[in-house]
């Protein structure tokens, strides 16, 4: 690690700051999980039946895509530490691509629901009762907020890729790269819970 004496850098603080931010993210989604548990407890049958309408196949596929993308971003950090810039960039590109495929799947999934007039505020959905309205309201809000995190994560990873390309991030200075990894893993972590709660528990 050759850092010029005039530039102050504190990787440990940067990492701690990132984690503190991730804690607020965990509490944000935690709050939504509380809402989910209560509404599920009040409307067990409606949640049970509504969850049947989600495609387990697309849900499983998206889960696996996110898991692979989590592994590839972790591998890109290993690569940058081993001074392999090209491999690090390749792994980041794969991560971005997997994130994009995840969003495309989500687009088709939401599109199918919206075609069937299932969306928050839909009059046809309202006819199906309070339980369905709550289930789909939570479904669209939580997966939507998660998708927003995917988009932000992809922008973050994009910035990191450019910095690696310009050698601003290298084997001696990769905390930002690691922070983008932490963010991406958190997004994966949230999906690990969203997936069984919406797609599997029927």
């Amino acid at each position, binding site marked *: 690690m050759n850092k010029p004496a005039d530039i102050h850098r504190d990787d440990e603080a940067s*990492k*701690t700051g990132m*984690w503190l931010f991730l*804690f607020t993210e*965990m*509490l944000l989604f*935690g*709050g939504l*999980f*509380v809402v989910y*548990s*209560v509404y599920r*407890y*009040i409307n067990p049958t409606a949640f049970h039946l509504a969850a049947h309408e989600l495609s*387990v196949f697309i849900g*499983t596929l998206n*889960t*696996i895509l996110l*898991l*692979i993308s*989590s*592994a590839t971003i*972790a*591998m890109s*950090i*290993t690569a940058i*530490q*081993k001074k392999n810039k090209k491999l690090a960039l390749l792994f980041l590109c794969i991560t971005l691509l997997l994130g994009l495929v995840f969003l495309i799947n989500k687009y088709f999934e939401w599109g199918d629901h919206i075609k069937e007039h299932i969306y928050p505020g839909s009059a046809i959905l309202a006819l199906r009762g309070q339980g369905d309205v709550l289930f789909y309201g939570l479904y669209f809000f939580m997966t939507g907020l998660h998708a927003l995190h995917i988009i932000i994560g992809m922008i973050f990873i994009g910035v990191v890729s450019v910095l690696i390309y310009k050698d601003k991030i290298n084997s001696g200075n990769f905390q930002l790269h690691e922070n983008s*990894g*932490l963010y991406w*893993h*958190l997004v*994966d*972590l949230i999906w*690990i*819970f969203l*997936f*069984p709660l919406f797609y*599997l*528990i*029927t």
Partner: protein
Amino acid sequence: MEPTESETHHIIPYRTLLIVLSVLITLTLISVLVTQISLGTLTVTIALLIAAVKSSFVLRIFMHLKFESRFLASMVVAVILIISAVIFITLLDYLYR
């Protein structure tokens, strides 16, 4: 139990990452298969247990908490405990209202 690990930056080998990835995918497929069989209330418990195991892998290896300081790891545990406590207390309120 590795006190000096946080001093020099720990590099996680590709092999470890690939093994963890295959474990995570296997656990995902198991949770899908298990929930397709109707086990009643047990389904919820199993699905959430598997999710908890998966997240501990992500936190410990991918987010390398295993190699970080105790302080950071215990903060993460505290946040998880806060969320669980809030869910638990809220549900108690609804169960015994």
